[in-house]
């Protein structure tokens, strides 16, 4: 210890071992990974003309990675779907979906091979925002992304994702290539009126990058997680990976009801044709509707407020002038369902629970019995007789 050279030698040797393992060893083990086919033959060879994955990102997306890096998005967003393994009854370890997959953040865990073509790998270590490793697989379109990048709060009211208005040119009137930002009430006057933004090239790069983030192929080392197995056993998957001694104190049956109502509701919302509600055609996957024609459901007091009013709309439709989120609309919504007004109590309860708890809405669930009560109270109404907003407001209870 007294000779500084021997001392340095000692403390550097301990460091060198770690270096040998994490740098040299790891590099030898998987430094030469390259794109591979989705499936290999038994003898580990691949078919001659098989498509190789991962694919390289388009140039614009690569530039987007630099912008994403420079803005420090990685301090809140990870890009890694974790691998969870458990032991089966024979003690063999098996791969399971785990909560990352169940949250819809990917179809399988991320593998080292997924990243070999990226110039900047930004795995991240904190999830204040959702994981983005597979963001490109969500159905969110470019306009949604630009709106979100410009001001996340216009889509997700209580979001803390930082707005990046400096990437856009803002104006009060629509212009060529401009995107409408939905108005919302909180945070000052400016945001109460509709705004239109034109994305800069940097914004376009970031959007291209986010769209390019997807691990939507299988790899020889890891196929997709089978969704069916998970479903049969919702209760167990709900808390998988969480030690028994620490659980979120929500009765699991309540959670199960809510999540099954949510997924059934999403089905009704998006299914077009007999048996579905087809709400998506007018109110859009984003719940934002379309300017002038269809009012938004996201953030709407009609959705989040009084249930009776909402159930009535879903039973018979709505027409005439209506103000939603401070904007006036005047259109007609026929009673949902094909044939008209054919949704069952259960379906209406599901879809309303879904719209009340999506796109940042958060309100109590609607139960089938509540729907049948309302249905009974207005059973004399003709199925084609749509409500008007005025009619509903006059005899509705104050919003809950």
């Amino acid at each position, binding site marked *: *210890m*007294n000779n*500084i050279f021997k*001392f*340095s030698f*000692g*403390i550097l040797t301990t*460091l060198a071992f*770690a270096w040998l*393992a*994490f*740098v040299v060893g*790891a590099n030898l083990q*998987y*430094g030469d990974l390259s794109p591979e086919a989705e499936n290999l033959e038994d003898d580990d060879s691949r078919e001659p003309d098989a498509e190789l994955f991962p694919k390289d990102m388009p140039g614009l997306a690569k530039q987007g990675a630099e912008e994403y890096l*420079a*803005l*420090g*998005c*990685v*301090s*809140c967003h*990870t890009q890694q779907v*974790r*691998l*969870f393994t458990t032991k089966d009854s024979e003690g063999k370890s098996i791969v399971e979906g785990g*909560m990352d997959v*169940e949250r819809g953040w990917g179809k399988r*865990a991320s*593998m080292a*091979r997924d*990243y*070999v073509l990226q110039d900047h790998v930004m*795995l991240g*270590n*904190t*999830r204040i925002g*959702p994981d983005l490793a597979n963001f490109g697989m969500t159905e969110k379109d470019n306009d949604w992304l630009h709106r979100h990048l410009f001001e996340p*709060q216009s889509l*997700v009211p*209580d*979001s*803390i994702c*930082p*707005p*990046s*208005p*400096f990437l856009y040119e803002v104006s009060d009137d629509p212009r060529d290539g401009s995107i409408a930002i939905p108005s919302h009430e909180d*945070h000052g006057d400016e945001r109460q009126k509709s705004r239109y933004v034109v994305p800069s090239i940097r914004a376009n790069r970031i959007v291209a990058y986010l769209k390019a983030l997807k691990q939507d192929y299988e790899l020889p080392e890891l196929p997709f997680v089978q969704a069916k197995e998970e479903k049969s056993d919702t209760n167990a998957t709900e808390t998988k*990976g*969480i*030690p028994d001694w*620490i659980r*979120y104190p*929500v009765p699991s049956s309540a959670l199960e009801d*809510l*999540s099954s109502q*949510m997924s059934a509701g999403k089905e009704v919302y998006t299914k077009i044709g007999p048996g579905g509600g087809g709400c998506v055609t007018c109110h859009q996957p984003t719940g934002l509707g379309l300017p002038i024609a269809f009012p938004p459901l996201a953030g709407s007091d009609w959705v989040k407020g009084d249930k009776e009013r909402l159930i009535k709309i879903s039973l018979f439709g709505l027409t005439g002038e209506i103000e939603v989120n401070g904007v006036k609309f005047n259109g007609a919504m026929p009673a949902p369902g094909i044939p008209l007004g054919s949704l069952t109590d259960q379906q209406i309860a599901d879809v309303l629970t879904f719209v009340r708890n999506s796109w*940042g809405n*958060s309100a109590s669930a609607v139960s089938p019995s509540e729907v049948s009560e309302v249905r009974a109270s207005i059973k004399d109404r003709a199925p084609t007789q749509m409500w008007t907003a005025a009619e509903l407001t006059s005899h509705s209870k104050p919003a809950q």
Partner: protein
Amino acid sequence: MKDTAEQVIDRSAKTVVSFFVASAGLWLLAAALLAYVAAAKLTDPFFLSSCEFLTYGKVKVAQANAFVYGWGGNSIFAATLWILARLSQVEVRGRVMLLFSGVLWNLAISFGLLGILDGHMNAHEMLEMPTVVWPVLFISYAIIAFLALVIHRSRKHNDTIAPQWFILASLIWFPALFLIAWNGLEINPARGTLPSVLSLWFGQSLIWLWLTPMALGAAYYIIPTILGRAIDKYYLAIFGFWCIAALAPWSVVHHLEGGPVPMWIPAIGTVMSIAMIFPIAVASTNFHATAFKDIDKVWNNLPLRFVIFGTISYTLSSYIGVIFSLPDVAKLTQFSIINEFHFNQRVYGFFSMIIFGVVYHMLPHITGKEISKGAKSFHFWTSAFGVLILLLAYLIGGLTHGVLAQQPSLDWSSSVISSVQPYFKITKYAFIILGFSQLVFVINVWKVIFPNPFACCLASSSERKGKTA
């Protein structure tokens, strides 16, 4: 009257150490300000949202860098030089070079942080400052470290003791870590997730092998010096030292649990993290067995109170850290704000608190001026209170965040993050308290280093007044 040997040494160290302490103080304030801005942005995303250079991601990273390299780096230089000089009983030499390198170091960090805010961030943990500033940082560090080693080499007594081991190790480990990371990330960059493993390893090792040994070394020096008694069970210290040297470089990678890297990497990390309870136990026995023999004195001596707060926080939080590296728990909390808990407890609750103690002990010796007890005490209580609140908020908030995030049916923004929101609010207030506390520290320190900063201006202005009158 002839000066004692100590006084001669202190005088030789005066300019250099004062420079480093004074600049460390400024960085501390800069980091406090940035920490507040970042915390405020988490509670209100529209706070300063139109300034591109103050967007959350940049501020957050700039804050960590200002804290570790600005405050940490400068205060490490100050404490290293003074403690080594005192222990070797030789004067600090090469003062001009030291000052020059110090200025270079601070300039490089300033440019680095501006670079981050201007959008030239690197993707590597704790190496986020733009590539160009690193050679400068490295050279200025090398000069300072070399001159510190010269002091050590010319020591009067050949035998070395625990504070010297820890401080020298910290001095040597940093450049070694840096070279390894630099080689693997910039000179021979690998593909895929390999750089991520390396940068995570570097970022975490920096705290374990640079800040931690420095603070431990300082504690090994300050506690016996002030108490005037030997370290209890001193023979354990060498075991503790080599345990840290052997285990810490391995233990940090448990953060990759479940990630897209070979499974042995996080597995080794977990095993080694658990083994870390040995060195933690050793340090804790050494410090606390000694300190608790004379607890009155610890309580009444403010520098020592700071140091003991730091060592207790080291022990407790390191054990908590071990718990959070167990795979079952790690799966829960791995990506939650518990990471902020680990970072802040290490660089604030432990490292900074000990350094505060060192500075308060060192400055009166060097400058011959006392710092008022009330001001130190105010600094202690606000810091202790602020840190405690901050860490509790991150700990409980982190658990909430982690547990809720594992419930796939809960909506991310409206259920998970909004449940963590109250804790973000608390941390914001904690950072305000800490900011005040640090301001008091900096004023305390600057007052003794520059007793009359306005003397010359006052003199000249009164002169002018005299003329006009």
